[in-house]
């Protein structure tokens, strides 16, 4: 049943999001044409337009995902979706997988748009090579292996908060508050989680330690970030940077918790108006 849910979820969302990809392609062609013609104002305008549209694409993708989740599950369409012979957690999984896929696709399209813009504006591969060699000089070229998983984790974390908030807002306790309940729950969830994540990041004694003396090296450490902050405040020249990992562990745990609770609420507490 999950594969069927995925099929319809992709089919329905594919009517909206790729339309914006086509707009990006059109603007990309415009920016490349501008570079061919060599008109300065046209190059700048089309490139900026491309970057702005690319960035907007990310926002639009999130808006489409939020609206789809709400409309398909908690408006009239929910009467059909919640009476299908599927488990609520399968409904949730299909929404999460498809949303995650579209967000990744939109990020890739955005990166593509950014590359085309930079190319049009005259930034060539030698400039990029020099940036990469700067990273290599400090031994940070492998940072990409950390940054990409963290980005993926952040997307999942954000999605789990959105789905959780919309679902909580559709439990009987929030019915009297209307659609605004979703925004309120999201804001409260986001703020609380950010506070806890910050505390956990600073105080949990698990961190990455980047040694700044001699050859830059990165190692796992059982120090917490608090000591690093104290030293910084005292004005002591740091010999290493400590990046707390407790926050990331917290994020992984919270993604699981939020998806689990959302599934349970969909199964037991959601009441369609």
């Amino acid at each position, binding site marked *: 049943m999950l594969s069927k849910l995925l099929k319809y979820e992709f089919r329905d969302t594919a009517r909206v999001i790729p339309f914006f990809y086509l707009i990006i392609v059109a603007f990309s062609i415009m920016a490349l044409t501008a570079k061919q013609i060599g008109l300065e104002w046209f190059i700048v305008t089309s490139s900026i337009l491309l970057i702005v549209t690319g960035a907007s694409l990310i926002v639009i993708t999130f808006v489409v995902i939020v609206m789809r989740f709400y409309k398909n599950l908690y408006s009239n369409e929910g009467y*059909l979706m919640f*009476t299908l*012979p599927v488990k609520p957690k399968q409904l949730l999984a299909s929404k999460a997988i498809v949303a995650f896929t579209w967000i990744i696709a939109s990020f890739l399209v955005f990166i593509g748009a950014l590359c085309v813009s930079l190319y049009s504006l005259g930034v060539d591969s030698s400039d990029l090579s020099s940036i990469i060699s700067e990273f290599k000089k400090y031994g940070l070229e492998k940072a990409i292996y950390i940054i990409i998983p963290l980005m993926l984790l952040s997307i999942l974390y954000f999605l789990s908060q959105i789905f959780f908030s919309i679902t909580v807002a559709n439990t*009987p306790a929030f019915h009297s508050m209307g659609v605004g309940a979703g925004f309120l729950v999201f804001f409260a969830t986001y703020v609380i989680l950010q506070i806890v994540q910050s505390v956990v990041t600073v105080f949990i004694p698990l961190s990455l330690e980047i040694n700044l003396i001699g050859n830059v090296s990165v190692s796992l450490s059982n120090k917490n970030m608090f000591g690093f902050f104290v030293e910084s405040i005292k004005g002591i020249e740091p010999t290493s940077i400590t990046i707390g990992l407790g926050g990331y562990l917290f994020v992984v745990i919270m993604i699981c918790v939020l998806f689990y609770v959302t599934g349970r609420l969909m199964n*037991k507490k959601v009441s369609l108006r």
Partner: protein
Amino acid sequence: MSKIIEISSLQKKYGSKLVLNNISLSFESGTIVGLLGPNGCGKTSLLKILTGLINDYSGSVLIDGSIPNEYTKSIVSYLPEKTYIAENNKAKYALDFFEDFYADFDRKKAEEMFKQFKLDPEQKIKSMSKGMQEKVQLILVMSRKAKIYLLDEPLGGLDPASRKAMLDIILNNYSEDAIVLLSTHLINAVERIFDRVIMVGGTKILVDDTVDNIRQTTGKSVEELFEEVFKC
């Protein structure tokens, strides 16, 4: 006959407002049951509990021996009051959807009914009139060979001619060994099809009897009894 639906001591509240209080009912297959009552009396809540749309109730609800879950959803064919098929899609999309998710959906039967009622599967749902949308939904629901049909106000907002067409769809297409539970407040239009009627009001079951019994013991039609029970 075995009891396909068993409800005991059911209680449902919305906040502090009690809607259903200590309701106990059972239903056997092969009957058409009218669930009657004024607006807001709990008919829709009862149907939503049976479909698994409402889970925060107390008491026991068993459908074919199971609490509402994905199995019971596979044997219950539910028509809500609202238009629940995506309005931006064509009717054909809804046919595909039902065919994919319900093993008991008879697509050929549905397509024949589309032709019979001059409905175009290529037409978008949102461009259809309210009556056409309701017909499409009822055709989808009745094209399933389900054990239980739960129809919530299937005649609301329809003109008399369409009402007759809708009743024909129900009568001609429900499985003989199934149960149809139909909620309505338009009693006169549907009285002829009921085997049994249940009148709900003031959180309780006020009347639960067969139509024949009602006529014999009271000498009244169901509509007359309804007016007497719910007179202001």
